[in-house]
């Protein structure tokens, strides 16, 4: 922001000249020319190659491994198994941070899930390590694996990251018993596994008493602290370089055991070690979205107004550790009702620990709740959009707090207009196309919270009037580098080309967590504050300098624009940054800033992004084949820093929603607990031609309360709403209500 006057909280923020522009990616050229280095691209001199050996059973013990054969293979440097596992400073089961989960570092011979690390082979070449890993030929004593929902449920400690397992308001029993009609919908969502293009990778090097790690992380500061805790190091001695991530989606924040093994191998062998997971190793050790079975009971009055929302989720978690997909949270945030209950229990399967995966909780929850809402609309004889409008939450459904902003009504209206929703036949199976395909339209409500974590940044003006921003910024493909530079430029009154971003290394100011859709808001605010702090200091220098045209203005009565400070009330009085610095004899001038939610803000408002997704599907009546022919998503997410990046985040999220609805899901073999489709041949995600037309509208929304930038976040909301909209469109096309994701062709047969 060019205006250095601290703004009172409720004053709308003016757009700067950089923010709001659809700039192309700052890192685009590097990426398309292959010069953007990812973790596994680093090959320090003397580097050895590690291969992780993972369990081929879901539960039991490793009884034998042919370590001699592996060691004897030419080129093999060392083989680590529980027998010679490197010691850790902390117990392997310690959880040094709030986001940590139990992990495996060869602590013993038990196998708790397929894909668990059971050995690490280090060799001169990847080929030798791979072959030695094969020669290990582990033998197992397998026990019966626990798979599926039909096991004794238990009451978990918490849901997601620390939410209570049950939240409620009002009298659910009364809301249901006094309702004019009630519906009950049971929806199942499958386990979905993290499969960013870049698999998890690390290059570890110990040098001059420090540990250097090239590894993708969504939270460099937190990761460095985590590694340091396990290894007994001072966090300052762990330097993580993570300029680019080939996708993170929640899987690349917490420390995983495989990385600790590679780091320790590097120490014991006194040479750099590289480990990159193979694609099939992404299915187990590095978190996934746990399966859910959700039961949603809705009560309505005669007009279709909800009297009760009772949303219960049974979530599958690991047998040895807990992460509960907080799917019922959707009931707390989507529709208004006098009585709401969002409850969870868990069942334990022999699977790796679930964790955050793009829109954790909300994605699965909305996929179910939106079907339930459609079932209710059908029962009430209402158009699904009208049903949603009748149950519009004017205030936060659970807390009753006012929203900091909420343009969902506009999203419904604009999305419906763009899609051409008007005139949609109420009954299903009314529309066909020329080829005899059944055509259906569906809608889903999208919503996602706007959390802020903590972040820090430093801004430095240089003698030539340009600036550098320093923070451990990571870009995982979402365009953060680009957007942060725009925010930085505005805060410094410079053009984006004049601002250098120095990031990607954990020894810079802590950039916080690129997660929870809160990165632009949090780190953006830190950068904005750092820029503001710098300009304030610069104004002080100018104001107190009798030779400056700005002498006596004071630091609150200047405006920073185009590399100059101007007196607010007299634009003829101005001076360039370079001149001010030169006269003060300063080579540089630095300011610092933090980004976090104001302490009491969360007590005053509810912060949510919103959207409405409209889907058209065509279903082949004889083959059950579904094609999503059109998607329109209208989203209101506060201030948009870069419309191009935002559109890409939102459309990418919606395409993820297509995968959720129709393709994605791990198939567990019920007899063995093994995953049958641990590769891209069989674990399907949408291809381009599955998403022929995806249109994104952003609805202007000014938010004076969410944070001083007015930014809400767009990274995850696109997934929510979309899967449900597609499922509902399939019902509208066929009259068949499929409530198990992904929706398979054979379920739509016999139409």
């Amino acid at each position, binding site marked *: 922001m060019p205006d250095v006057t601290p703004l009172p909280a409720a004053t709308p923020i003016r757009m700067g000249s950089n923010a709001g522009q659809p700039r192309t990616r700052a890192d685009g050229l590097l990426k398309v020319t292959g010069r953007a280095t990812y973790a596994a691209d680093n090959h320090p001199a003397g580097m050895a190659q590690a291969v992780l050996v993972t369990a081929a059973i879901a539960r039991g013990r490793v009884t034998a491994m042919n370590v001699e054969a592996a060691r004897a293979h030419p080129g093999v440097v060392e083989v680590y198994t529980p027998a010679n596992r490197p010691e850790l400073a902390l117990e392997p089961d310690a959880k040094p941070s709030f986001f940590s989960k139990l992990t495996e570092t060869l602590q013993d011979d038990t196998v708790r899930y397929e894909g668990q690390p059971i050995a690490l082979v280090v060799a001169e070449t990847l080929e030798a390590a*791979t072959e030695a890993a094969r020669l290990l030929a582990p033998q197992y004593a397998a026990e019966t694996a626990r798979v599926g929902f039909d096991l004794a449920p238990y009451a978990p400690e918490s849901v997601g990251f620390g939410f209570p397992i049950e939240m409620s308001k009002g009298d659910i029993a009364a809301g249901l018993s006094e309702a004019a009609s009630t519906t009950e919908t049971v929806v199942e969502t499958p386990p979905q596994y993290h499969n960013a293009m870049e698999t998890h990778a690390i290059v570890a090097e110990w040098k001059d008493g420090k540990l250097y790690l090239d590894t993708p992380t969504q939270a460099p500061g937190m990761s460095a602290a985590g590694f340091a805790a396990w290894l007994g190091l001072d966090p300052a001695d762990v330097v993580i370089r993570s300029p680019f991530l080939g996708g993170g989606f929640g899987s690349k924040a917490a420390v995983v055991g495989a990385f600790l093994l590679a780091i320790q191998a590097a120490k014991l062998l006194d040479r750099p070690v590289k480990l990159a997971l193979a694609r099939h190793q992404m299915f187990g050790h590095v978190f996934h979205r746990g399966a859910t079975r959700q039961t949603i009971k809705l009560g309505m009055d005669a007009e279709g107004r909800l009297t009760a929302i009772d949303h219960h989720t049974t979530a599958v978690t690991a047998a040895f550790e807990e992460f509960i997909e907080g799917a019922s949270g959707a009931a707390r945030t989507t529709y208004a009702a006098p009585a709401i209950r969002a409850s969870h229990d868990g069942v334990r399967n022999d699977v790796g620990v679930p964790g955050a995966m793009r829109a954790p909780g909300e994605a699965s929850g909305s996929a179910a709740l939106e079907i339930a809402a459609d079932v209710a609309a059908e029962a009430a004889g209402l158009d699904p959009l009208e049903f949603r409008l009748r149950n519009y939450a004017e205030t936060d459904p659970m807390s009753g707090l006012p929203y900091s902003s909420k343009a969902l009504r506009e999203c419904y209206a604009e999305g419906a207009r763009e899609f051409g929703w008007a005139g949609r036949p109420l009954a299903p199976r009314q529309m066909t196309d020329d080829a005899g395909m059944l055509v259906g339209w569906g809608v889903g409500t999208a919503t996602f919270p706007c959390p802020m974590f903590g972040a820090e940044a430093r801004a430095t003006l240089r003698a030539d009037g340009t600036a550098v921003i320093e923070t451990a910024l990571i870009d995982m493909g979402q365009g953060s580098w680009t957007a942060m530079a725009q925010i930085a430029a505005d805060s410094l009154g410079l053009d984006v080309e004049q601002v250098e971003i120095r990031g990607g290394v954990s020894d810079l100011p802590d950039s916080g967590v690129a997660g929870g859709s809160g990165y632009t808001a949090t780190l953006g605010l830190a950068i904005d504050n750092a820029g503001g702090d710098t300009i304030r200091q610069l104004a002080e220098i100018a104001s107190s300098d009798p030779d400056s045209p700005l002498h006596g203005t004071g630091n609150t009565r200047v405006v920073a624009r185009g590399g100059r400070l101007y007196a607010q009330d007299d634009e003829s009085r101005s001076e360039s940054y370079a001149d001010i610095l030169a006269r003060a004899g300063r080579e540089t001038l630095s300011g610092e800033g933090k980004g976090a939610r104001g302490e009491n803000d969360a007590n005053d408002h509810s912060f949510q992004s919103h959207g409405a997704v409209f889907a058209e599907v065509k279903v082949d009546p004889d*083959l059950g084949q579904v094609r999503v022919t059109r998607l329109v998503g209208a989203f209101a997410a506060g201030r948009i820093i870069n419309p191009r990046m935002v559109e890409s985040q939102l459309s990418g999220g919606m395409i993820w929603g297509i995968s959720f609805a*129709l393709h994605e899901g791990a198939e567990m073999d019920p007899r063995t607990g093994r995953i049958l489709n641990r*590769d891209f041949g069989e674990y*399907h995600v949408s291809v381009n*031609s*599955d998403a022929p037309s995806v249109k994104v509208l952003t609805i202007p929304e000014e938010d004076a309360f969410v944070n001083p930038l007015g930014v809400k976040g767009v990274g995850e909301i696109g997934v929510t709403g979309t899967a449900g909209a597609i499922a509902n469109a399939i019902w509208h096309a066929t009259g068949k209500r499929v409530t198990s994701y992904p929706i398979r*062709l054979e379920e739509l*047969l016999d139409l």
Partner: protein
Amino acid sequence: MSAWHRPASLTEAIGLLAEGGVVAAGCTDLFPATRRQALSGPVIDLTRVAEMRGISETRGGWRFGAAVRWSEVLSAALPPAFDGLKAAAREVGSVQIQNAGTLGGNLCNASPAADGVPGLLTLEAEVELAGPAGMRRLPLAAFLAGARRTALAPGEVLVAIHVPSHAAAGRGAFLKLGARRYLVISIAMVAARLVVKGGRIDRAAVAVGACGPVASRLPALEAALAGIAPEDAAAAVSEALVAPALAPIGDVRGDAEYRGVVAVELVRRALRGLAAEGMR
């Protein structure tokens, strides 16, 4: 890594193979199927063997070298009887896969879901094999011995695929069903070829893939189609005429019952499509 041989002639290839090793063509099946980092033994890459390259019209019909890539099939000038094979070529994996993967690899890999097989079955294809014991020819149906099993003897390679002239007649079609739009392993696929004379079907060849250990022709249906008008062909298709030739299983891609049902529908559509093409 062990040696990687690129023989230029068939004699050379067979000589090398006599000493043992792995046969490779485009490697699009071979590499994913290899669990180890390196292939065991020397590799004999057949893609430069002169006898295995190119598509040509011969006195007896058409000859496809075993190392012909799917993209070459697509760009070759072939009679309409090969339209089904071309349609399959377009749907094998992605363009990158089509640029590397070969016809021979598709057949020798012998996947139940090999997209090339049904079309070649309807073209009455024969395979030419060569090995230490010399050359031999087999009908494709006899070559495919089961799921991932062929009639190849040790040391033997597939040299070429022959389509006799009598089968290069009429028009062919191919339909593939997968869960997503592209880059997908078939749940079921169908190839059909109709020869029409005087407004009547003179000869029909129909084959279904991915609905049994090997793709198979549908003799009962073919017999029923002979003599009727092409526009009546789709209506003549019934489950009774299709099902006996199939032995579908259930797997992650689709269940057995579903495969049985959609195979019938895909046959109908292929025939309907051919009838429409013929009338234009």
